[in-house]
């Protein structure tokens, strides 16, 4: 164990993806609004839902996002913003919660895949030279291993879920 803890001295933890918490609150709100507008357009172009039809659901998502980003910033528990956002979105749509039926109704009108597209575009533009360099330097072996890691994790979960789905 000694040689392991000694190794933490040369710890260089610069996460390749920058998280929230780096920008000011107002700035984060502004950036969310930009992403939200791009999302609205994405839904419109992708599945032809007019922004007017999508608007009520999109406003619900916007409010969930704002609440989640605020909670992540101010509640001293290490839950990431996305964790808070899903928690809030789940709570307001559980049957029996006041207004849940209306919320579910308006949110159903917004296509979910279209909302993922902007994040992937930002993701592709955010990739740094370091990430390309690591992928290149690691060579073909790590690519083979990475594919096995992803396949193994997915198929492993499928098999266990399939075996245990009848329980409970």
């Amino acid at each position, binding site marked *: 164990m000694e040689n392991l803890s000694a190794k933490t001295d040369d710890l260089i933890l610069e996460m390749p993806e920058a998280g929230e918490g780096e920008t000011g609150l107002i700035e984060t709100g502004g950036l969310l609004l930009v992403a939200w507008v791009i999302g609205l357009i994405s839904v419109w172009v992708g599945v032809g839902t007019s922004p007017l039809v999508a608007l009520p659901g999109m406003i619900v998502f916007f409010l969930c996002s704002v609440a989640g980003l605020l909670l992540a910033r101010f509640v001293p528990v290490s839950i990431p913003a996305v964790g808070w956002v899903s928690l809030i979105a*789940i709570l307001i749509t559980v049957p029996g919660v006041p207004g849940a039926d209306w919320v579910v109704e308006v949110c159903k009108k917004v296509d979910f895949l279209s909302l993922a597209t902007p994040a992937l575009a930002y993701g592709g533009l955010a990739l740094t030279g370091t990430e390309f360099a690591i992928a290149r330097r690691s060579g073909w072996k790590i690519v083979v291993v990475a594919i096995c890691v992803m396949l193994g994790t997915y198929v492993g979960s499928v098999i266990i879920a399939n075996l245990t789905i009848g329980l409970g």
Partner: protein
Amino acid sequence: MQQPSAAGGRAWGLHLAVLAIVVIAQAIGIIILPIGAAKVILLPMLYAFALAIVVNPNILRGTARIFTPRVQKLSGAMITIAITPFVAKFGTTVGPEIKEILAVGPALVLQELGHLGSILLAFPIAVYLLGMGRESIGAVYSIDREPNLALIAEKFGLNSPEGAGVMGVYATGTLIGTFIFAIVPPLINAMGIFDPRALAMACGVGSGSMLAACTGGLISAMPGHKDDIMALAGASNILTYATGLYFSLFVALPFTQWLYRRARPDDIQTAG
């Protein structure tokens, strides 16, 4: 800390570029290629990612004037912000199905053990077939997303062999994970031996973009199961957020290290 808005007009260049990429990707739409009984499903998010990589300043040098390092950093921060409306949408599909989710609760919790599937498949290939050293520990012990990367960084340092392994799989997963998770699940579904709910739950094992790609692929293949696919995948992903790090720390990493000591007893460095 410098004001990111000091990047001024260039920040708008980023958002306009993203808007253009999104419009192109969304206009192309979902493409389904039938291959025998199976279907290969191509999603707009894949084109968006691919297009963005093509204009990434590290690939297309000419764009370095717009996408400066500072703008790229902003783009990284935008990922977490831009994904929140998608996450909210996902949450609103989980709430209404809460009863159905609780009904398969045991399966949902137990399938988290599926993360060991990575070790079972990838460890023998890395160690015995490819002859890799200690980097295989970092590479195969988990799906190597951000929390797992942080764990290896803390225990071994990222410039250790274990760190090189985790970074390699992390970078590869970032580059091709979305494609794998969009294309593979519908193919497995075509085998016809697994419950759609099991295929959906397993969508939650990785990052947000893997989740999006996986559910997108499955729903395109089985439109009739849309509601339960989304709800179960969403619930599983939240569970992975909650338990993933502990599972990695207390089960997966010690197990991988134990396997490695068995496989390479002479490599004493792994005594941890």
